């Protein structure tokens, strides 16, 4: 288990992480969601010990960052997603994969298998400087897969990928989850996170403002666009208005009779509605306006 205990990190007066307490289990995919500059990458860097918190600690399977030996031990267990601009342009993709596979030495899975899974065979033996952005992004992801560490930290892994590649990587992520990997990923692709994240952490003002259990979320909401007619019809009900003018009415708080009446009124007023769970995008709008 990966644990962050009372982690506090500030740059001058700007507190980026304020007494963060988090526990992550193996075999889950955790999404980190927040607008830019809210602390997602900082949190990842604290987990990697690239930034040392002023207070609190990070612990994985009983080991904390206390000595260089501990750091190496933890880095053996935690691999982070490199930035594509940092790849060696004159090396091939295979060179990079072999490097990570060999350095982490966690896997018996051959590099060729990873290349086949990520459909990189046609270009992996070319120099990286000839790759498109999408190819580089896939290579960076493949490097983390090659490291095969129990914890994988992915910062904006889907950036620059077309829908096909997003689907391909999502599929591999689910496979990795089955292999009991803990995957923590910062992403702006909320609909994608919605599909496979087990947990989504919304960050803001140094805190985790919502720790959403995406799989066990059972609350359903009546959703409709805000309008004077709609707000008039909902005046007797408890509802929330999101910054994108979406009205959310929690169904659990309405009796079946009242719900039937409300739906009939909405149809009569020709107001379009849907009944579904609240999604990550809605929450993003809710929290970050």
């Amino acid at each position, binding site marked *: 288990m990966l644990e962050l205990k009372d982690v506090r990190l500030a740059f001058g007066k700007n507190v980026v992480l304020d007494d963060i307490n988090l526990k992550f289990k193996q075999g889950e995919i955790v999404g980190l969601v927040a607008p830019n500059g809210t602390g997602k990458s900082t949190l990842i860097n604290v987990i*990697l010990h*690239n930034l040392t918190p002023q207070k609190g600690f990070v612990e994985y399977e009983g080991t904390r960052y206390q000595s260089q*030996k501990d750091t*190496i031990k933890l880095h053996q267990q935690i*691999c982070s997603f490199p930035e594509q601009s940092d790849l060696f342009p004159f090396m091939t993709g295979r060179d990079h994969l072999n490097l990570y*596979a060999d*350095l*982490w030495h966690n896997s018996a899975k051959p590099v060729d298998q990873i290349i086949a899974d990520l459909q990189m065979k046609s270009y992996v033996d070319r120099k990286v400087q000839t790759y498109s952005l999408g190819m580089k992004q896939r290579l960076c992801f493949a490097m983390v897969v090659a490291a095969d560490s129990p914890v994988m930290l992915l910062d904006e892994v889907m950036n620059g990928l077309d829908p096909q590649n997003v689907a391909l990587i999502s599929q591999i992520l689910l496979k990795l989850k089955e292999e009991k990997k803990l995957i923590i990923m910062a992403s702006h692709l909320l609909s994608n996170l919605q599909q496979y994240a087990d947990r989504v952490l919304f960050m803001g003002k140094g805190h985790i403002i919502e720790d959403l259990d995406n799989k066990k979320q059972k609350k359903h909401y009546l959703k409709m666009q805000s309008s004077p007619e709609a707000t008039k019809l909902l005046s007797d009900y408890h509802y929330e208005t999101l910054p994108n003018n979406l009205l959310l009415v929690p169904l659990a708080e309405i009796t079946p009779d009242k719900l039937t009446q409300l739906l009939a009124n909405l149809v009569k007023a020709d107001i379009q509605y849907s009944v579904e769970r609240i999604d990550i995008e809605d929450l993003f709008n809710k929290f970050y306006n």
Partner: protein
Amino acid sequence: MRWRYFLFQLKAFLLNPKNIGLFIATIIMSLYFGLVSVPNHEVIERVDAKPIQKEYIDDTAFLKVARQEIAYSNKPGYFYFPSKGAVDAVGTYPKVLACDKQLLRALKKNDWQTYTKYASRRYQYIDNLIHTEGNQNFLYPAAYNKSNNYQQDGHFGYQRTRHLYNALLAGKKNRQTPLDKNILEERTALQVMQNSLSGWTVLILVVIVCFFTADIVTNDRKYYTVLENIPLSKRTILWLKTGVVEVGVLLDFIVASVIALFCLAPRYGMGTLRLNTVAYLGRINFKLIFKTETLGMYYLQFIIFAIIVSFIFIRLTILLSLTFRNDYVAGMLSSLFAISAKVLYFSFGMGFVHPVLEKLPMTYFSIGDSTTGNLAYLMDTPGWGFNSGLGPLLVAMLAIETLLFLFTQIKSIPLVRRGD
């Protein structure tokens, strides 16, 4: 797990444009050395029948006249004092001419053993006449006079040649090593390399080592997130990078040496490591002036020195690049350290100097000066050789290692920072 990282770094090192430039520069230098510098090098003690023949004819004629002059002065009733030159000639020329006669005969028969034996005797005899007896009928070749010290430089030159010839003769006798014109003129590839790997030549190679190393650590900032969190300790990374530069430098120098050898060997022969050579002991007026050793032993000492010196400069440049976070500054500073001794005190051609210089590591960075004994001659004191140099070099190495160890132990000092 470290092997792949090593290979990856080695590939990055070999593909680095700056390093490719250094490789090309070294190759051009070795081509220049093999094709231009050595063939145009003037051998002072040439093995050539023509000047001996000329000298033999001239001296025989002079001796004849000198004898007539002496005979004239000895005639009863004549009050005539012969010139000093005539007296000296009658006293010394017969022995020199006898040697010359043997030399010419040996050259005609290609009998190198006899030639070497009589040439050695001749050098000893003439050196004794000039240096000890102050005879002015003989002169050292002007080419010996390098530091405006004609008498001493000439004496050293003759003694070195004499001892070298004796050593080559001993080698021929004991180990059946060959003797020929090129060997006596020290023109074979291995002998030329031995005599050339000193002074600025070696210092330029050391500076190349510094610039090979300058960006080995700082370059990682270009690939920051790829290498930032790899599961290797800072010390391991630095050792592996040191290994990469060692291999790169070794490769560079081997290629340069092979090119030089290929340029020289067809023209002058390769020579053999079993050949004898001499190293000056720093006591010009003592009985034991030079020690004899094989070229193989010489090269072994040279290589040990070279490995230590290159290791010192690789680790020093790494230390400087960690300290200043700038590859140019690191390369420049370590290069300045490399040439410091040459610039600060050897270029001034000083004679006896305070023994403290013998304890300084930079005294030994030009390697060949130390292993051939040239340094002992320049300093006019014994020592300054392989055994004297090992201590200071090892102490310097230890000091650099201690500082590097401290650097790697401090958590707050990363090898590279993104903003460096």
